[in-house]
């Protein structure tokens, strides 16, 4: 990377620090607006409790302290990259998030690669066959996939491919009765990945397809296409070297925005396929008022979004050298 590029990245990262601290404080205030606390939930789940037990829990969780003290304690921890302890899980928050981050990244990067890849391809095909049967077929399928509720699509895939055909496992990330190792384990995880990845891809694919199609059509209307034709380039050369490269930029912007959301996990797909991701963990921790864990997930997602944004900006300048890093 050039010195200019490096300076840019460092400056962006420095600017990110106050942003993330603001996020932490806002989140802290927000989650404390919800009535009830972790002690209520734990005792509620237990189905029985005594006052001593409830007091013990609150003391243990630090819930007997004033809110301002709790915030100060939390901020002090975050600054030292200590995300605290989840009393509900009896584990440190960073450890909990680390165990979920791997599966989340695996699923989401697969989904991202598939949906952007196929989306760009299908969008380009549709645009080049404007208003002919290929275009119509792709557009109809895209809208259909986008309009289908994710949980329903997931369940239908399970019914067809797991229950009826028996090709793929119903749920989970690996075969738990066998505990495979080495390459067998990799293959096993891949097999478990297929259905959840397809389910989510179907949803995002539509978006990228539509976006790419519109973007390609826009580019074809540009003057430089006329120039290219005038100087005698073949349609193929125009499409691949000029139009598609320019048309991909808006898709990339979209992917940049979505990658943030994707990294937060997908509650629906994780629920349906019992995929051990961050989304369901966050969802659970909200209803359990597991404040430390929830804030920890927010913090990690916040950091990821900020760094992904920097990466996307860098990618712009690679794809389109006219864009300068400032």
């Amino acid at each position, binding site marked *: 990377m050039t010195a200019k590029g490096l300076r840019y990245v460092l400056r962006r990262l420095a600017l990110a620090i106050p942003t993330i601290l603001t996020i932490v404080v806002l989140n802290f205030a927000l989650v404390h607006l*919800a*009535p*009830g*606390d*972790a002690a*209520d*939930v*734990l*005792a*509620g*789940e*237990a*189905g*029985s*409790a*005594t*006052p*001593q*037990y*409830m007091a*013990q829990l609150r003391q*243990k969780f630090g819930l007997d302290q004033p809110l301002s003290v709790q915030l100060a304690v939390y901020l002090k921890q975050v600054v030292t990259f200590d995300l605290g302890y989840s*009393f*509900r*899980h*009896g*584990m440190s928050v960073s450890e*909990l998030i680390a*165990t*979920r981050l791997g599966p989340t990244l695996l699923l989401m990067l697969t989904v991202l690669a598939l949906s952007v890849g196929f989306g760009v391809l299908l969008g380009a095909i549709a645009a080049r066959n404007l208003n002919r049967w290929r275009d119509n077929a792709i557009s109809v399928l895209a809208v259909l996939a986008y309009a289908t509720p994710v*949980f329903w699509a997931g*369940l239908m895939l*399970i*019914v067809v491919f*797991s*229950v009826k055909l*028996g090709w793929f*496992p*119903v*749920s*989970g*990330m*690996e075969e*738990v*009765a*066998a*505990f495979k190792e080495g390459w067998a384990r990799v293959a096993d995880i891949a097999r478990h990945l297929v259905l959840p990845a397809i389910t989510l891809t179907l949803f995002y694919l539509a978006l990228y397809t539509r976006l790419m199609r519109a973007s390609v059509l826009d580019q074809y209307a540009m003057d430089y296409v006329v120039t290219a034709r005038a100087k005698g380039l073949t349609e193929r050369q125009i499409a691949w070297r000029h139009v598609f490269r320019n048309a991909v930029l808006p898709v990339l912007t979209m992917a940049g925005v979505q990658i943030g959301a994707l990294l937060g996990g997908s509650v629906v797909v*994780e*629920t*349906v*396929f*019992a995929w*051990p*991701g961050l989304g*369901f*963990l966050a969802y659970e921790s909200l*209803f*359990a*008022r597991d404040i430390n864990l929830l804030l920890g997930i927010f913090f990690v997602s916040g950091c990821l979004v900020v760094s992904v944004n920097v990466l996307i900006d860098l990618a712009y300048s690679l794809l389109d050298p006219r864009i300068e890093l400032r």
Partner: protein
Amino acid sequence: MNRLVSGFVLALLSVVLPNIGHAQQAAPQRGGTLVMVVQPEPPTLASYQSTSGPIGQVAAKVYEGLLEYDFDLKPIPGLAKSWTVSPDGKTITFKLQEGVKFHDGQPFTSADVQFTVLEVLKKIHPRGINTFRAVESIDTPDPLTVVFHLSEPAPYMLMALSGYESPMLPKHIFGTGDINNHPNANKPIGTGPFKFVEWQKGQYMRFDRNPDYWKKGRPYLDRIVARFIADGSTRAATLETQEAQIAGFNAILPLDVKRLQSLPHIAITTKGYEMQSPIVELDFNTQKKPFDNVKVRQAIAYAIDRKFIIDNIWFGFGKPATGPISSNFKATGIYTADVRNYNVPNGVDMANKLLDEAGYKRGADGTRFEIIHDVTPYGEEWRRFGEYVQQQLAKLGIKVSLRYEDVPTWLRRVYTNYDYELTNNWIQTLADPVIGVHRLYHSKSIKQGTVFVNGTRWSSPETDKLMDDATVETDPKKRAAFYHEFQKKIVEASPIVFVLELDFVTVYNKKLQGWLVSPLGLYSSFDQAWLEK
């Protein structure tokens, strides 16, 4: 016709009765991995500290208790080989099994029992604080003898010594460090038939066979894996495809049960929950108008059609409840059905009459008064139940609006702020009324901020005395008499509408045998469970 009826009865029996007889006939086969679906994922494995439902299903494979129980709710030997209660009921002596070892190889002795009860269960177990409150001291004359000294007789204590309710911990592990936040909380070491191996949060827990288990030749299974799947339909699909072999505590939703039941490899049962005995209720705020009036409370109790609710909302898995104590206690003589019967055909008329008498006449538009009905946030069926109550009370001229909130908000509202009028709810009445029932009606159980205690804030000196007397009464007949009187008084005062005794459903693969050996069901150790090859 007769043949048709008997055929139907047989079919019904084969559905209702589990394969216990079958399991005893066939010789158990060794080996295999049992995959059980546990819903939801337990928050922790510290069953000595939290009684959260799913914990027991996994922790009871690792930790054992002094006693086990038979289907008549009578104690049978567990880690204690035998026990004797002194005539005054204040001294209980346990003789422990010989040759019992913890999973780390250390022997299980009387010191472990002493430590577990006095230092752990009596101090930090949510129910143990009550169960063992009468225990003053515990003597350990030799490694295999434990003597409990009680301040007063405590007959209920013998009902609470299972591995699920009162797990025995190794003193040499849990005796050091902070018991509230112990490093071994999620790495349990017990005496049970299965050893804890790992817990992949969000995915599964793995337990492997304990080869040195003290019951020779057991367990039969090589491994138990508990899986956590948040989606109900997916859980059903794992049983359908035989990826998992058992799921209980309604982990398979009633709707899916009906479908799975028709598959040749699936069986269902409602047995194995006799020490839980959940009752579905409507709780009144008895210190607030209009439900401070006993006639209004009785009116609501009359207006509810229990049969309709069971058939349409709980898919037939339940039976009408008559009072605060579940009919599962019939075997012990404590239960009585001889109470005011609200389950009558002309309930709505009775209710209208009572409301008139109470002075809540219909207004010009036919409305007597308006209330907000809170719906307990534990699943869809509670919403349906709330909607039913809304419709049914409309017939009485009571305008009901429903309020849905999440668990912590609802708990705060009902048990801390008392900011409600009528809420639906469910309570497990557990292994003995002292443990499961007193908390809902005793004056001393009106404890602001503590959940699932007396949130209706109804109490009377009479019922307080009956409960106090029953607590220390060692003669089963006299004890039963106290409880019969108690049930009459409570049902008459109607601080709670007793709607139905909920049947939990366990769905399991027919290849799985020998798992249902006690009223603890899924909360037992599975040392006799085996898989047909």
